């Protein structure tokens, strides 16, 4: 039983890492009231998934997918390309989020969710 668990941890550690990172990011999004911290949580959440993609692309003994002479194994380049696109999306999302936070700060004078909600109620 214990050996099984150790076996899972040793062979599937990439899943464990990505899921713990995702949970961490999720906590940041839900548990923190500071909007910037929420955005940081969101980024961690996104990057955890990128990590998952990159880790499933690995092929045992594979090298970086650049053409070289001779018979070699390459890692799967497709997830890398997909994640390149997803990173661009993540950056854009972060930019939109930060610009929203800047405008929220100018409008409400705070980046704390509770204070903003209180000001909204006052209206």
């Amino acid at each position, binding site marked *: 039983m214990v050996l099984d668990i150790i076996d899972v941890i040793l062979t599937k550690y990439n899943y464990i890492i990505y899921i713990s990172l995702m949970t961490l990011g999720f906590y940041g999004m839900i548990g923190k009231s500071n909007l910037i911290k929420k955005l940081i949580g969101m980024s961690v*959440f996104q990057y955890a998934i990128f990590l998952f993609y990159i880790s499933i692309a690995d092929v045992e003994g594979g090298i970086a997918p650049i053409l070289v002479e001779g018979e070699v194994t390459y890692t799967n380049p497709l997830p890398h390309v997909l994640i390149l696109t997803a990173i661009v999306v993540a950056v854009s*999302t972060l930019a939109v989020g930060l610009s929203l936070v800047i405008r*929220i700060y100018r409008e409400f004078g705070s980046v704390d969710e509770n204070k*903003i909600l209180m000001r*909204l109620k006052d209206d």
Partner: protein
Amino acid sequence: MIEELSNHLPILLIVSGLIGAFLTPLIGLIRKELCSFWASFITLIQFFISIILFYQAIQVGRISYWLGGWEPPWGIEYAIDILNSFILVVVSTICLSVAIYGRKSLLKEVPEKEVQLYTLYILLCTGMLGIIITGDVFNLYVFLEISSLAAYALVAVGDRNSLVASFNYMIMGTVSACFILLGIGYLYLMTGTLNMADLSRLLPPLYGRPAILIGLALLIVGLSIKTALFPLHTWLPDAYTHSPSAISALLSGTFTKVGIYVLIRLIYSIFGLEYFLRNVDIFVFISWVASAGIIFGAIMAIAQDDFKRMLAYSSISQIGYIALGISLANNFALAGSLLHIFGHSLMKTGLFMVAGALIYSKGIKRVSQLEGMGNVMPLTMAAFLIGALSMIGIPPTIGFASKYLILLGAVESGEWVFVVVILFSSLLTAVYFWKVFEKVFFGENKWKKGGKEIPLSMLLPTMALAILSLLGGFFAPVLIKVFELWMSGVIPGGV
């Protein structure tokens, strides 16, 4: 040349939008006023292309376009069948009518920002059309994010509260997009392909594997957030209430429908009904959740005084109908759902346009201020009346046809609880619209008689959508015939 071009229509639909969106800043440098005409022009092109594609799809059955000439499953494929060409027509109709409507409405509600607004507007429309047309799941994710990012920014240009609404929408939307990305990752991990047609071929032998189940669960949760299916709807009311009216009209009519489309595609095309009937019965769960959403949305709508907020909650209720129809999984219900996607787009966009018209001409946002508007803006209010009657489901409107079909589907499945839910919620819908009717048509007239109607460029799309939703009921049998062509392939046992 024309012959040649007609083979490239799927990509021209998207490229015209991309070129259009990124030329908007340059046009804005010349003259700002031109931007809105430009947006109408681009959406008009997309509308025509969609119509032609729909026609072609009915003729041929399935059109496949290979990007860069790479053969699927290696390359990205744009696959068009009857289902998605129909949704293309629905979405592009709404995009076009809102673009025409928005010229005056957006200018009044958000002055001095045409350039950015219309760039994002065209991007949002193109992104949605891209989601519908693509046959590649990762491409779908990218288009989903393009349109979502545009939608966050467009929601944020509304009033003061819209910033917070947009922020919440963004957080929810990103979580949903991440779930979708992760779900796609699991499917890719198991099958090694991203092409939808290829997935549907490779998935059946893997039906029993837990990783497939995880992927499906992530995809369904992610899409449910995007479509604002009941318990995951929390971003919707705020986003629709505080964004500019034209944007609420566009989002309510199209964005949630696109999510529903992807859900239908996922359940019926990619996974196949077989999987759900044999391995995991999520339909029971979805149908109960959808029924809860139908009732919840309707009751919340009754409680609202803000006109747009009422319509937003009504949207949640109506999305419940569509999801219920999908999860009943028989011919009647699915046809009803598809028809309701069409009908609800027309009605809800029309109703939001009426809400925008009230803000435009009198600055009215609340139902309680609507007294006697029937005399002041008779044509706009007539459009409202038709939209609301269709929403309640009074024959011969399209709302009646679609609800009737879903009802028949529930009877066919022997699910009498849902029959009761549908009938009861129609009653609730009548209650919240009656609240408005009472004020509009029977309220004391405080306004001077013969007041000003809204400008023609706003009135025309509003009336057009209202008339379409009235006539839609008559066209329903024709549309159902078309759906049957598609459904006979996905529902085992034939029509």
